[in-house]
């Protein structure tokens, strides 16, 4: 590969889109060419700078989109909610006229009826067993899980099925059951969108159960947006000793700069005089100032707090 070929393929190399032989030739050339190596480093820099421009989706926007879609589907803006099951057996490109489709469908139904009757007559399918669709491969297993299965008599089988059933709960947050559901949803590991919605719903609620749940989420949730929401909810408990200890813990240990910034804002609201701080927090703030890797905003806020308390920090 020549220098020109290498430099034309810099991006494709970084994207991993060169084929094996091209990649080999590319790397062989790079080993002995300082000029192309520099060009590759420049390429990496603009790739990283462009990537930093990526806009992330806020949970508010995502939740709003999900809500509107759900509403649109329920309100019937969408087409028919349920297609008839036999329509699935008709190929997409099928161009027969409507009457022939109807005859075909009717014939299939008659055939299915006769077959089912034969099975039932032979005692192979007990009436009322509800398993006819399973025999025809039409059993909907998407919300069911077989927990146990064992032989039962000759040719028999005993199956225990766990089935997930959708249930709607509507009510006031003062209702203990509703409140418990929302608190449980805050711990849902599968969907950060549900957790962030639950935290938002509880944000303006008081009580030790809400405070403890928010503290737990702020300290342990795997998603930074959820942790920030939980901290926002903890603002109302900012004077409480347990809350302050938890927020101090977050400031010290959280690896996300936005979460740490939120923690500082709770410990020391920008529009009020700084309250008394534990020596531990002051040390953490000084460590933040000393850290080269720390986010600029977090460092600026730390400096502001330390200055407000007349504690000198390093030159920033």
């Amino acid at each position, binding site marked *: 590969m020549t220098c020109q070929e290498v430099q034309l393929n810099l*991006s494709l190399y970084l994207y991993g889109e060169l084929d094996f032989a091209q990649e080999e030739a590319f790397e062989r050339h790079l080993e002995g060419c300082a000029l192309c190596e520099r060009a590759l480093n420049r390429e990496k820099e603009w790739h990283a700078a462009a990537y930093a*421009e990526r*806009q992330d989706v806020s949970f508010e926007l995502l939740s709003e989109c999900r809500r509107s879609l759900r509403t649109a589907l329920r309100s019937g803006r969408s087409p028919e909610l349920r297609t008839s099951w036999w329509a699935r057996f008709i190929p*997409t490109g099928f161009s027969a006229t409507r009457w022939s489709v109807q005859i075909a469908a009717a014939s299939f139904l008659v055939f299915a009826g006769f077959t089912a009757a034969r099975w039932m007559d032979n005692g192979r399918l007990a009436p009322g067993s509800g398993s006819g669709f399973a025999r025809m491969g039409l059993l909907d297993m998407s919300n069911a899980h077989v927990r146990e299965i064992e032989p039962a008599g000759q040719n028999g089988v005993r199956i225990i099925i766990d089935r997930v059933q959708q249930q709607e709960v509507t009510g006031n947050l003062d209702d203990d059951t509703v409140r418990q559901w929302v608190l449980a949803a805050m711990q849902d590991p599968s*969907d950060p969108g549900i957790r962030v919605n639950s935290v938002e719903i509880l944000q303006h609620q008081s009580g030790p159960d809400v405070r403890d749940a928010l503290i737990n989420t702020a300290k342990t949730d795997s998603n930074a947006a959820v942790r920030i929401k939980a901290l926002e909810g903890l603002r109302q408990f900012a004077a409480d000793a347990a809350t302050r200890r938890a927020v101090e813990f977050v400031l010290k240990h959280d690896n996300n700069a936005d979460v740490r910034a939120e923690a500082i804002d709770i410990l020391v609201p920008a529009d009020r005089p700084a309250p008394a701080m534990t020596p531990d927090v002051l040390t953490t703030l000084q460590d933040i100032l000393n850290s080269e890797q720390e986010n600029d905003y977090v460092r600026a806020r730390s400096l502001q707090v330390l200055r407000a308390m007349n504690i000198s920090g390093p030159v920033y």
Partner: protein
Amino acid sequence: MHGSADRSNETALIRAAQGGDAEAFEQLVRSYDQSVLRMALNLLHSPEDARDIYQEAFLRVYKKLPQFRFDCAFSTWLYRIVANLCLDQIRKRKVRKEEAAAVTTTSGEMDRFQFLPEQRADVDPQRQLMSSEVSERINAVLDKLTPRERLVFEMRHYQGMRLRAIGESLGVTEEAAKNCLFRATQKMRAALGDFL
């Protein structure tokens, strides 16, 4: 969804949704909706437009799902719908921009885009402290890409999609997608290579 277990789970979800199972459809939406929304937001730089694309794309998926025959991956099919919607929107916007970039005010003729609110400034305090020069240049060059180059660059650079999948989603060959990406990266390099 990448592994074979995930794929079979996805197939089960699609079949259930085709049969009218609303919960299965919702799960399917949730598997992809963040990346669909991110793609629309990155391409259009407008939460309102991104929200419209999201809604329209999933409503179309819902409408056409009974006809989905597994001829391609579900993700390819979905991104084809999203890509077409985004392309339409970018093209419409380009026309509008050319037609109405300037407005007449009492102080004379001014660029309409000066009146648009800053969409990103309040999102992240870190951004407020950062120099915006690099950011402006990147956005300017992205804005100058053709709609198709912009889309391919978005899908490869930001969404991490392979060129083969991008080609399938856009209904073009992998080679055509590669050429498009090549042109886009050449323009980015020309504008940013010596600047950084």
